[in-house]
């Protein structure tokens, strides 16, 4: 009990992120205590603002893969968090200072490059610039979650055990860098430079050869090219996918009634 937050008087500090601005910096250390609350993890409840978000929240969509099946754009990171949040691990690839010329002189900011993946079929990349490292990292993680794509794994030879390598040769390009992923037999491991190796591991690919061309010194483009190559694994129509499958209804159509029923246009709430 001796350590718990004292009740009473300063209670007005509690309760969220809005009050801080009014009180200024006093009694807040360096003002960097935001997000930690008063010894509680202040988890804000998610109010979805897109149709897809609403469907996900109500549990109408079973898996993340249903969203990928119809190539629906994901605009809220909570959607990704809802399905695979706990298994996603983020990794900060680089934090670097960047400078911009403004009227008032040079302005330096921190830029954080983040990769996110669950080592089992999902990978995302994000970058964010900010004055504080924590804000940059947090923003980059959110953008990385928004960019998560599914990764298709396949076999090199015998189809025994779990898929472990890329299903076919795929190439990704970004800037002048071209990265090619080539299937490898089980046990080869990932044969590549450190940056793509990290991404391939986070994507869940166990064995792979890589071949890189162009100015691979531009690590940013190198990483993006690897990400593009990994994303192509599901874009490539291999013969085993040639079988005709019956078309299913996209979620917006299937749950159209639900969406119409619960639709509350912004602004109408104020009038009552």
């Amino acid at each position, binding site marked *: 009990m*001796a350590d718990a937050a*004292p009740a009473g008087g300063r209670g007005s500090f509690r309760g969220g992120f809005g009050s801080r601005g009014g009180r200024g910096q006093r009694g807040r250390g360096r003002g960097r205590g935001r997000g930690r609350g008063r010894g509680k993890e202040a988890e804000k409840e998610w109010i979805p603002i897109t149709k897809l978000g609403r469907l996900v929240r109500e549990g109408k969509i079973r898996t993340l893969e249903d969203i990928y099946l119809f190539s629906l754009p994901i605009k809220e990171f909570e959607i990704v968090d809802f399905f695979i949040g706990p298994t996603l691990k983020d990794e900060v690839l680089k934090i*670097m*200072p960047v400078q911009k010329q403004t009227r008032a002189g040079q302005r330096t900011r921190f830029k954080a490059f983040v990769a996110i993946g669950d080592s089992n079929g999902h990978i995302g990349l994000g970058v964010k610039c*900010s*004055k504080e490292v924590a804000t940059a990292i947090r923003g980059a993680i959110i953008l990385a979650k928004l960019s998560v794509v599914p990764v298709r794994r396949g076999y090199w030879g015998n189809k025994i055990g779990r898929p472990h390598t890329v299903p076919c040769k795929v190439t990704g390009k970004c800037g002048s860098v071209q990265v090619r992923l080539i299937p*490898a037999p089980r046990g080869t491991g990932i044969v590549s*430079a450190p940056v793509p190796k990290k991404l391939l591991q986070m994507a869940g690919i166990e064995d792979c*050869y890589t071949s890189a061309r162009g100015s691979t010194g531009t690590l940013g483009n190198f990483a993006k090219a690897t990400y*593009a190559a990994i994303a192509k694994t599901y874009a490539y129509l291999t013969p085993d996918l040639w079988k005709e499958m019956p078309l299913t209804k996209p979620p917006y159509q299937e749950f159209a009634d639900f969406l119409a029923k619960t639709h509350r246009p912004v602004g109408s709430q104020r009038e009552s």
Partner: protein
Amino acid sequence: MEVRMEEQNVGAFGPLEFSHPSENVYSYSFRSEVAHCLFCSDMFKLPEERTYFSTHLFVHHQFEIADMEMIANMSKYCNYWRSRFLAEPPNKICSRMLIDAKGDGTCVNILVLGKFIPEDKKLREDLHNKQMMWVLTQKINEREDKNFSRKCLLCRLQFKGCRADYLSHLSRLHNMQLGQPENLVFIDDLLNCIETRLESLHCLFCNKLFKNQTVLKEHMRKKQHKKINPKDTEFDKFYIINYLEMGKNWRQVKNEPDDDDDDDELSNAENSDRRVSVGNWSDWEEDEDKVENPVVCLFCERSSSFDEIQSHMNNAHGFDFTRISVDMDFYHQVKLVNYVRRQVYMGHCPYCDKILPNRRELLEHMSMESHFIVPQMQLWDQPEYFFPTYENDSFLCHLNDHQDDMAELHLSKKMEEDCHIGSC
């Protein structure tokens, strides 16, 4: 560069490693750095003796360094100018100022070194950038290090894990708010600093002395002093935001408008993934002094970039890899490389399998017998050579997959067209 052996027995052949020379870490110490005077042999410990240093410069050498406290690394700064002034007299570089120090009308000529001199400005900026890169590298290392172990400052828990969890334990259980873990650096030093304060029975925030631990804890709880005083400059060096801009402390940086942080990402239109923009990644470039992923020659120990190694192998060993691999598919190239590497490592000639006692004799034998050619296929076209002989063998990452290149190019063009149609 040597080759280290992981395992050697006849049956299983473990992966080998190239050991590249490790990069030297830019050393910067928080413990007092020592600065040499620019003109005489006096030494000063900074930051404690900063005022003595500047007085010494003023009185003994009629010299002044403007904004001394903003210089990132005083000892390097002083060493630089010290050697500069040996080559060129200071009055040619520095500006002159007339100062009335005594207040009685007699003026003294003072030489001043400051940011208005381009060379000095550049030096300061370089030192500042180096310091910032060092701090950020340290930050990333601390963030990834999962082997952190320390006893909690306020309870008896022995903590093991990563630093961010330690800090969130302090914040959740003990209500000690030090700030977001991502904004802190040199966390071990920070915790040591706090620990010494608490053990000497001083309050963390107001620095008042108390009789014993219990009274101290009660005071900190009641007054909510379990945090760092923003005015306490001793803790400035633990917050990354203070390293951001030269000369600006965190208050000034915070007050700047936050608006155009997103300009870079949104304005960049070129990105290969059409569905989602992952932002502008092109400014992340490798350090210039480091050769990215050096490629090691198949026969000797030379390491360099891939193109250079290819021409080296052609000139020094007569082994034209480009010509040899032109009609080999990717997998065959991989097997050949791994086979040659293993043979060379074990001291066997790749072509005739003759055993030589050391590398030098092996190379001699191969050049005398002209054995720098492709061995018979059944020797190396075996499944065991799919597995890389060396860990992180960059040679394998540069192999060209020519046969499929033309087909791939045509296919990717077609796929891009289809994607355009699909997404509109």
